[in-house]
């Protein structure tokens, strides 16, 4: 196996390890900016074209087909001259000689290397984790296992009441299983939602037929030849033939270790997404920027955009992302962004409508929007994210802000003082 040859004879070899959403977006962004400058090769462990991981639960829920979640067609990759090495695992990086070694022994030279290796699910350190029927929820293979389990088994437990866990639970429920969610904390999605939104989420999730067990610390998974129950430390026991562990993720940084890069919780990168070694970059869930590992797609896309610009020779820097969370569960609109905890020095504005099951909280700090939690009505989530990101002064918009962009901006325009008339000569 040799390095891909790009369209330009002077092209520098750019190798991307990881064939996920960050990688696909990086290629797309690079092609917009610097067509021909790089000969791009993408190495992916999964034996398929890059797909939209966000939609895994939708596949499970049969709301979309497998084909629908493919990010780019094979023809697209071909057309853009990308050498796709999917089904291959990179095993080491020699930073000094700038080569990547694959599991099959082949090596690839690079001028620039991008690690987009993503993350993997944390496995619990409890007895029974190795039993058949205990899986994580990360890729299409996991989806296939869950679909298979749904055919022969009835009861599923999802450990983890975060974004991923709830999406998995929803998918399993749609696939016809009786689903219980076991969550360590006293409320669902506690990092993305405040208490009130969590409570509303719980009601909504339960209304979809999913049982929710809060304050549930897993002690063991029991079963003879297969998972049969999840035992909690407080003695509760939940029957489950399928146990999906969605209790958090960890950056895939093993490969980076071989390159001698600095690693904390993820691969440490600077504002150019460059690791501690020149010309080696990391983006997406494997990267740690300013001490933060992001677990969402949007920061990965932002990083891809910045890195593409950087690689194209443009001035670009990544300053971190404002976290915005969207739960992909049909009929449950949940959104949060920024710091919505209501820390000292902040001011909260709340709008709720019990009949519509909507709830919004905006948190202001120093006259600027610092955070937002939306439940039920998430139409203006992006706008709030942008306001948080740009730090624009809210000023006169304060009282209209929570009613959405259309109303707030119109009111602002109407309230604008008329242009001063020129003074008479």
């Amino acid at each position: 196996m040799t390095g891909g040859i790009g369209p330009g004879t002077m092209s520098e070899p750019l190798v991307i390890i990881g064939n996920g959403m960050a990688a696909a977006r990086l290629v797309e962004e690079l092609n917009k900016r610097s067509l021909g400058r790089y000969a791009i090769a993408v190495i992916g462990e999964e034996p398929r074209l890059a797909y939209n991981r966000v939609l895994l639960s939708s596949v499970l829920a049969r709301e979309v087909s497998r084909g629908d979640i493919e990010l780019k067609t094979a023809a697209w990759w071909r057309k853009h001259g990308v050498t796709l090495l999917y089904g291959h695992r990179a095993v080491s990086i020699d930073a000094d000689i700038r080569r990547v070694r694959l599991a099959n022994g082949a090596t690839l030279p690079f001028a620039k290397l991008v690690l987009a290796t993503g993350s993997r699910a944390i496995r619990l350190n409890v007895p029974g984790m190795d039993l058949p029927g205990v899986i994580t929820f990360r890729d299409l293979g996991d989806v296939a296992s869950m679909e298979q389990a749904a055919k022969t088994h009835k009861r599923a437990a999802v450990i983890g009441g975060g974004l991923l866990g709830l999406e998995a639970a929803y998918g399993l429920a749609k696939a016809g299983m009786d689903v219980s969610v076991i969550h360590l904390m006293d409320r669902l999605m506690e990092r993305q939602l405040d208490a009130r939104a969590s409570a509303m989420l719980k009601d909504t999730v339960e209304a979809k037929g999913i049982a929710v067990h809060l304050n549930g610390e897993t002690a063991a998974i029991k079963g003879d030849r297969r998972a049969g129950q999840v035992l909690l430390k407080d003695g509760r026991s939940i029957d489950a033939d399928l146990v999906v562990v969605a209790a958090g993720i960890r950056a895939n940084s093993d490969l980076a270790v071989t390159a001698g890069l600095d690693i904390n919780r993820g691969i440490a990168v600077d504002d150019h997404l460059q690791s501690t070694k020149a010309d080696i970059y990391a983006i997406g869930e494997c990267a740690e920027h300013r001490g933060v590992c992001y677990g969402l797609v949007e920061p990965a896309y932002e990083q891809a955009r910045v890195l593409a610009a950087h690689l194209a020779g443009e001035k670009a820097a990544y300053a971190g992302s404002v976290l915005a969370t969207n739960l992909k569960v049909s009929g449950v609109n949940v959104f949060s962004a920024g710091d919505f905890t209501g820390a000292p020095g902040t001011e909260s504005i709340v709008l709720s409508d019990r009949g519509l099951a909507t709830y919004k909280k905006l948190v202001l700090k120093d006259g600027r929007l610092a955070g937002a939690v939306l439940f039920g009505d998430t139409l203006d989530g992006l706008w709030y994210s942008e306001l948080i990101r740009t730090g624009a002064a809210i000023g006169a918009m304060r009282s209209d802000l929570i009613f959405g962009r259309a109303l707030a901006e119109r009111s602002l325009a109407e309230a604008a003082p008329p242009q001063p008339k020129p003074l008479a000569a």
Partner: protein
Amino acid sequence: MNAPAQHPAAVRTTCPYCGVGCGVLAKPDGRGGAVIAGDPEHPSNFGRLCSKGAALGETLGLETRLLHPMLRQNGALRRAGWDDALDRVGDGFSRIVKEHGPDSVAFYLSGQLLTEDYYVANKLMKGFIGSGNVDTNSRLCMASSVAGHRRAFGADTVPGTYADLDEADLIVLVGSNAAWCHPVLYQRMIANKRERGAKLVVIDPRRTATAEEADLFLPVAPGMDTALFCGLLVHLAGTQAFDSAYVDSYTTGFAEALIRAREIAPDAKAAAQLAGLAPSDVARFFDLFTSTPKVVTCFSQGVNQSAQGTDKVSSIINCHLATARIGRAGMGPFSLTGQPNAMGGREVGGLANQLAAHMSFSAVEIDRVGRFWNAAAMAQREGLKAVDMFDAVSRGEIKALWVMATNPAVSLPRAGFVRDALGKLELLVVSENVTSNDTVRANAHVLLPAAAWGEKDGTVTNSERRISRQRPFLSLPGEARPDWWIVTQVARRMGFADAFAYRSAADVFREHAALSEFENDGARDFDIGALAQIGDNAFDAMPPVQWPARAGVAKNETRFFADGRFYTADGKARMIAPEMPRPQADLSAEFPFRLNTGRVRDQWHTMTRTGLSPRLGAHLPEPFVEVHPDDAAENGLRSGGFARLTSPYGSCVLKVIVSEGQRRGSLFAPIHWSDEYASAARVGGLVTPAVDPYSGQPEAKATPVSVAPVEFKYRGFALSRHRLTMPAGCWWARAAVAGGEGVLLASDDAPDDWRARARSAFGADCEIAEYIDAPASIYRMAAFDGGRLVGCLFIGPAAHAPQWDAVKALFEVEHLGATQRRGVLSGKSTDGLAEPGPVVCACFGVGLNTIRAALRDSTATTVEDIGKALRAGTNCGSCLPELKKIVSEKSCVAQPA
């Protein structure tokens, strides 16, 4: 063939508000309401209606109506049957008269009553109980005009007609905000001005809406009208306009009147100084008056409601007598009546200082009326006028009082004192339309459900002596009965069945007409003998009739006094020497402002009827005080803030309106708000009990008061489908809104307190939506029931009081759309905001309707286009499958809002 339309024909009737007496066409809608239009054939209005008249259809609901008699038993008012209620009234009055004499009882009547109601009440008290104690709220309105007329003409005669307003070349309005209080007549004046070039002079301490059209506005000092007209008389005496032949032949007292006038205002300059006017303006007025033979001087409450009201009327009439400008087309003094049937009340003698049918308490007249009535016990002397009557109630001398169709606990001077006095009565009977008002709540013992406008059947007389029918177009609701019937039933129980054998309003009317011509022979102005034999059918069909309507006269004159024949003993008019004008009460350091009171355009009296109309409530929804900008600045008052007005008799808290039109040192506050409609706006409670010595009319427009700013931390409003009970200690004012009521409020209670109140007020059955901005002290809530807004409360810092217009509009909507509901608590209109529809792209907040619209107008044709145009699907991509589906859909119909 089509079936004939089932809609009933429109009924011709007469408006129940001011004294203009406009004809109304009421077309019942079959659901208890009616479509209201002006009657094009009525000679008072020719089809026009003012805002109040036009909104009559909104006041017909039964929500606030008293529908059955109620008796106080063990401290509480309880429903009772008519027999029990009438027995209680009849027995009570009989017993108290027997024990304490006839003057221990009294009736307090109203210009809202029909002539027939008035007639039987007056007859019962003055001919059968034997007391003169019948007075009426006309005392607060017209008494000085009555006294002025009687003093000058020997009878309470309005000499002119409305046609004079069309034919005059100069119209002088004194103490009249006709633009708001007699709008249809005012429009007639304006038409004359526009079409014939008539000049309009407005004399009023306040620059009212009426003054806007004036050729000359004279902002007279409060109470100093007499000085101006004395100056005018002096001026006229030295000009060609003075008609010495008429004065010599038909009047007496001119010399004395002129001497007094010269003492008061020897010339225009002196008049100007006394009246606080620019000498050039006064000179211009005098010149205009002198050089314009066709002049009508209209006067209303600014003249009447004064401790020298009768002198003011006299000083005006003097000028018309001196120039013989009276009783001829386009000329004359013209009293504009405040109430729909003040004139009818005067005709039957429903005032304490009248007996009946324009007769007074002379021995001859007592005898005449007694014979006509076959009276059991004729009153031998005048009774107590309103203010004195309630004083006597307070002293315990009057022990039983029957109040009909009026609300003295709000409208009388010292209204608080009056309310307390009512509480001392052994028997307080109230005939009412509404279940609750301030008078009802002043310890009434018996409530009698009276027929209301639209149900009542009888006659009213307007300012130009025109008798018009009020006809029923709705059936009597519940157990409501006409007032004449109620009084008749009580009279029968008191043993006077023979004299009160009426079967119908027509029976009463015929007797009333017969009395007017009884032993008359032209000696009395009021004579409608031509109608004494009118049949029931003819009464039903009776067109508007102007009196006199003497029997056997082919064509009655429509004006009085052009011929110089007056109703005094010698047949001559009296010119009266008025007293030196000055308001009765002096200003002081403690009470340095003069409080003027009056009406606003869209409310009537104590709002028991107009308060039901959302349209009328929108004009000026809050009780207010108008203050001159300099006075406001000196006293720390600001527009939109609040002020406490205090007099020796009471205090109010009102919204401040700073107005250039207000005179310095004067304040103006409207009379309408009662304790039913506001927390502390019963302006009658402040008014001095000083009265005119001749008319007994209170000085309602010159009470010394103090004014001080009142601050509230929070302001807001509530809207509700049901009546809200407001907590003590906060300021509030109620206003009708479509489909419910609105309350404007101000308070020092924290938003959290209001949150608790709102949650209990709107019940657990509703879906509650809330907006809470605690750091900004803002709380808003809305209650929904099945998609309908059923209530809301908005409260926030006073400096940024929430506005209710947009929310009111949503309150009227039967079912709110998604965008409307989303925006209710913003307090802003959602009109014109796009209805994005259900969210498709959650990352970028793109709705289904937005996407479909882009496809429809070809902004986008593919999923990629949608991404470029709307960004939908370009972040996490999870909506791409749905976008594909939307694009592939053939039909692109937006979701309904």
